[in-house]
């Protein structure tokens, strides 16, 4: 290891330091390619060396068996979950005597086509059986919570929308709801219904995307094509309404950015009328198919108690039989005024997670149809000059409007001191936003509780004892979006 620090070598141009132990030629015993790998500190339980030793806060990777104590092994296998009698993992089941010669640690990712982004799973295998799993994340970390502290509330929605890039409108929604809760304002009725329409459409597109990628992970290429085909219709509507296919910055504090386009009812109705029968086609393609069922049924099971203990939310929690949906349990927007069912599974396996999502698509379309019927006339954003910019037409004729417009976009609006936690049901689970305001126009602290980040913790439980061939299927059924995991 080198003694240099990165600051000494800003250009990174110097050649790498010589590695005395691992030359391809020179030593009597031919150096094996993994010599250096095994000689590294944390792998063998020793101390890290060089630069890592100076600053290291500990290794994030899965450690080899001989470097891991029995208690730690049991913890990684889920034995410490607080479960009732009869559910708890029997410590005797966990073979702590197994030696490193019998097991193998492999990396799945971060560059792996079916980990849905830069997720790195370290799997310990005994033959084909997965013994331990550790997700290693952070490869997509861009410091968005820190960035959020530097942006005004007006700019903030642009930042958060990039977190969960498959359901950007939910990110914008939770940020806007939190900001409005601090401001103490209520947006007009039409804006609320538009928000519901857009976020349900986004749930449809996100779940369709999941159906597509899950189908592909299980080898059903047709499902992949079908899922993307239907999602395209929703994205085309998003583009028509917001101008962008993703990262819309459409839902903003104070309302939405623009009114729905002319003829939106027809567009939305066409989407509903097309997607609904095609869901039945998916049913025929996958649900009854013996191959699909064998690859999903009783694979990657998680019990309700485990899910609760691990703070898992969303379709994974519902697949275990707990009817917890924030739209129903703690209604936001006008979800208490529409009629829909909360879909639950029974066994908490891959198949239940699939069927929960498939039927949630149907429920979302049911909600969308009700929203189309009940969309009230009115304003699509708050007419409060301190929060939202004045209409474009007013700027030409009113000096005051021009000033307000300028102020909103340069300085932003001031938000009273306080702190608030708002949570909504995103396609992946509880999406929360914790905002702390110091009275200025920028959040003092913005924390996003990403459902994917927390749900990833359930992977080791689901994978334990399964086959390596099912690891991809289990990982896919958790539906992690790495933009949100790493933020």
């Amino acid at each position: 290891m080198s003694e240099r620090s990165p600051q000494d070598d800003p250009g990174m141009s110097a050649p790498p330091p010589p590695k005395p132990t691992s030359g391809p030629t020179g030593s009597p015993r031919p150096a094996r390619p993994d010599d250096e790998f095994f000689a590294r500190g944390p792998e063998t339980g020793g101390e890290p060396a060089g630069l890592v030793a100076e600053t290291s806060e500990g290794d994030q990777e899965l450690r080899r068996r001989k470097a891991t104590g029995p208690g730690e092994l049991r913890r990684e296998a889920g034995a410490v979950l607080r479960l009732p009698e009869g559910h708890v993992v029997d410590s005797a089941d966990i073979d702590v005597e197994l030696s490193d010669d019998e097991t193998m640690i492999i990396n799945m990712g971060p560059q792996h086509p079916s980990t849905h982004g830069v997720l790195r799973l370290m799997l310990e295998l005994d033959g084909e059986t997965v013994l331990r799993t550790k997700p290693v994340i952070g490869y997509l970390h861009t410091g968005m919570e820190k960035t959020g502290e530097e942006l005004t509330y007006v700019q903030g929605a642009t930042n958060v929308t990039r977190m969960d890039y498959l359901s950007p409108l939910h990110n914008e929604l939770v940020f806007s709801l939190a900001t409005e809760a601090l401001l103490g304002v209520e947006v007009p009725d039409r804006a609320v219904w538009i928000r519901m329409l857009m976020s349900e459409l986004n749930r449809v597109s996100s779940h369709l995307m999941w159906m597509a990628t899950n189908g592909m992970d299980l080898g059903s290429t047709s499902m992949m094509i079908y899922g993307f085909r239907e999602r395209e219709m929703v994205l085309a509507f998003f583009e028509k309404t917001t101008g962008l296919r993703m990262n819309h910055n459409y839902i903003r504090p104070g309302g939405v950015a623009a009114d729905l386009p002319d003829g939106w009812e027809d567009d939305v109705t066409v989407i509903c009328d097309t997607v609904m029968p095609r869901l039945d086609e998916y049913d025929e393609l996958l649900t009854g198919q013996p191959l699909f069922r064998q690859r999903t049924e009783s694979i990657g099971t998680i019990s309700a108690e485990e899910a609760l203990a691990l703070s898992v939310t969303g379709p994974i929690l519902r697949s275990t039989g707990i009817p917890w949906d924030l739209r129903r349990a703690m209604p936001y927007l006008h979800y208490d005024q529409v009629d829909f069912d909360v879909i639950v599974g029974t066994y908490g396996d891959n198949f239940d997670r699939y069927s929960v999502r498939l039927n949630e698509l149907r429920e979302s379309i049911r909600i969308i149809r009700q929203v189309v019927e009940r969309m009230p006339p009115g304003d699509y954003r708050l007419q409060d000059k301190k929060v939202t910019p004045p209409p474009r037409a007013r700027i030409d004729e009113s000096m005051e409007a021009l000033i307000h417009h300028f102020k909103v976009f340069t300085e932003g609006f001031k938000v009273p001191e306080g702190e608030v936690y708002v949570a909504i049901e995103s396609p992946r689970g509880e999406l929360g936003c914790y905002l702390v305001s110091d009275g200025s126009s920028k959040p003092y602290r913005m924390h996003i509780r990403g459902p994917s980040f927390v749900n990833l913790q359930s992977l080791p439980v689901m994978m334990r004892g399964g086959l390596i061939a099912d690891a991809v299927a289990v990982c896919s059924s958790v539906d992690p979006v790495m933009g949100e995991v790493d933020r």
Partner: protein
Amino acid sequence: MTTGEVNTAGGSSSRVPGRPHQEVAFVARGAYVGAVQAYRDAGFEMCADLCAVDYLLLGDRQVAEGVDPERFEVVVNLLSLSQRRRVRVRVQVPESDPSVPTLFDVYPGVEAMEREVFDLFGIVFEGHPDLTRILMPEDWEGHPLRKDYGVGRVPVQFKEAPGPR
């Protein structure tokens, strides 16, 4: 402990009228795990979120009566599915000793969240089974979400790449 008196049912608790699900409880650091355990026993099945705030720039901020503000604050969002109720437990953590006991034994789901707070704030969770960095590389210097960690101040760091074999 520097913070005020806490009854074991969970400390000083307040509801904000007009804002649903914004119940806040301040607990002292010494009574933290006990208070959270009491909430768990009272039906809060899930720890929805755990994060921290660095109040370095807001020295004279207002907190509840009897609570001495400190630099750091660990915020735990507990969720009761059966009662459809949330409570936010806030713990003051002094700058001189940035550590709190872990909640891992009460809610195993906080594992990743506590690692995240440790990574980004440098708050140590005593007793956490695997307290390592989670989002930043393990050889990163500093804790980015602290308020004295300047934006753009640190040059881009790369993990040392292994040389050619």
